[in-house]
């Protein structure tokens, strides 16, 4: 397509403005994280008067950031692993079998996506407390409870996406595996899972990001020892002062692992969306 000049100029202007919009907060994050406290407390400066890496040292002291970090990694990691495994089984069932109640199942699971979180926050809190009282399994305030909660958050989308992905894998592959004497589960892991690995990676990325970024349930369902980063970062604001340079430094430290991971794996996500969600 030989695009006319007017199109090229529109494109250039639009993309420049959009890039500025996208980059601005990232610039603020990076530059403010390197400023001394006096600078971030005063008027904003495009060019910092003095650079310091002090905030990056202080963030670990002001709040127990390392503990929050560990909590977030354990919770998000476990939620991702379980969510992906459960989604693989469910998507395999939906994609490869016809059975009564299949439509009801898909619609039910997908529709849980639209529930306002606020509707089941309090009931879930009560359920966890009651399970704790009845069985001694501490779900409320524990990492396990958060893992359990988060893994269901990404599940509907993961099942949906993987079902689409599995559908696009030729059934001859399953048949061939069965001829070789594989049962259905063996066929799933020998044939389907390897063939669908881009889709599975995409779903894992999505699940991890969902868990890493959740705020509401993390605020209500954690205590001092299980607090995740989502809640912990609020600790830099004290009654009188906000250590904005430390907030920005901590935000950056918290973001870099997910952003790098995401950007490395993003082509799988695009591929997964193409195969699964976009039909």
């Amino acid at each position, binding site marked *: 397509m030989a695009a006319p000049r007017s199109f090229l100029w529109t494109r250039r202007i639009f993309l420049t403005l959009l890039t500025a*919009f996208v980059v601005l907060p990232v610039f603020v994050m990076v530059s403010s994280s390197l400023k001394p406290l006096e600078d971030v407390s005063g008027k904003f400066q495009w060019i910092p008067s003095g650079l310091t890496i002090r905030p990056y040292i202080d963030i670990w002291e002001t709040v127990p950031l390392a503990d929050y970090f560990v909590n977030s990694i354990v919770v998000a990691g476990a939620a991702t692993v379980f969510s992906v495994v459960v989604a693989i089984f469910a998507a*395999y069932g939906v994609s490869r079998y016809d059975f009564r109640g299949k439509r009801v199942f898909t619609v039910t699971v997908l529709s849980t996506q639209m529930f306002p979180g606020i*509707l089941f926050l309090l009931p879930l809190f009560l359920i966890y407390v009651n399970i704790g009282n009845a069985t001694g399994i501490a779900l409320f305030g524990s990492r396990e409870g958060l893992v359990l909660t988060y893994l269901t958050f990404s599940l509907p989308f993961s099942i949906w996406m993987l079902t689409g992905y599995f559908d696009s894998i030729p059934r001859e592959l399953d048949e061939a595996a*069965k001829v070789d004497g594989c049962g259905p589960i063996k066929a799933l892991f020998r044939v389907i899972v390897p063939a669908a690995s881009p889709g599975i990676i995409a779903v894992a990325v999505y699940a991890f990001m969902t868990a890493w970024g959740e705020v509401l349930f993390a605020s209500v369902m954690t205590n001092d020892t299980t607090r995740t980063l989502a809640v912990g970062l609020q600790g830099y604001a004290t009654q009188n002062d906000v250590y904005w340079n430390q907030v*920005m430094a901590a935000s950056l430290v918290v973001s870099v692992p997910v952003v790098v991971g995401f950007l490395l794996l993003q082509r799988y996500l695009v591929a997964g969306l193409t*195969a699964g969600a*976009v039909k």
Partner: protein
Amino acid sequence: MTRTAVAPTSDPAVRKAAPGGAPAPRRSGRRRIALPYLLLLPALLLELLVHLIPMLMGIGMSFKELTQFYIRDWSSAPWAGLDNFAVSIDFDAPVGQALLKSFLTTCLFTVLSVALCWFLGTAAAIFLQEEFRGRGILRTLFLVPYALPVYTAVITWAFMFQRDNGLINHVLHDQLGIGDSPAFWLIGDNSFWALLVVSVWKGWPFAFLTVMAGLQNIPRDMYEAAALDGAGVLKQIRHITLPSLRPVNQILVLVLFLWTFNDFNTPFVLFGEAAPEAADLISLHIYQSSFQTWNFGTGSAMSVLLLLFLLVVTGVYLLLTTRGRKTSDV
């Protein structure tokens, strides 16, 4: 997607073996019926525990007079019938009035946010469809807001919107000279616009990603044929790109709508537990009013009303969009 190309079930030999590619006939009949249910069981149990049962409980609670005294054993709370609902929709009294205002704010906010996200995402995806220098970098860069954890992104915006030491006022007031004094962004009427900016910044890359995926399914020769017929860029976008994106857009707009309407994280991190009136989105409003008065019965009734509203909107939307679709394709 060419789904037909990979669905070999029209082959009679395969179909006879098992519908849907189920295992070989030597397996017992019962096993074959049980297996799909076993595969779905973990997902179903988890959804039941964390979503469905709590939701039913939430509906149950909306009929109870559930104050802090009954929190330990909610089932013993006195029956309230439809009282909670009556309070919620009594628009002459303060509680109902505040809920209505929050609902209308959320509606306006959602329409604006979804429209802007859709527009930016679609425009960016179309502009990045052709190969040019820097395309790959931009494509990666545009996904950064999506990849950043919500709270770090929103905290950064909160810093930028600070009255005295934020970037926004530095640019608008100090550098461009707008206004007599630096404006407040996180309190008062401006907070609506601050929230909208953050929401669009965070949300548009998802539209971009989805539309980009959708664009890959448009065959190139359609554009070439149109170009041969003398159709310019705008005409090609109008007659090829946008119509081809219709099925993608139907889902995209619905998902964006539900996410934005239910969004709790953005206002919560930007404003804290109590949002300014102009930016009091419904999720945060229900949360705040429940925990402020400790009347969870009323809070549940509000949540149920919210759910009903979303169900009706989604139902009508799906009805309208899929009806048009059945006649054109599929």
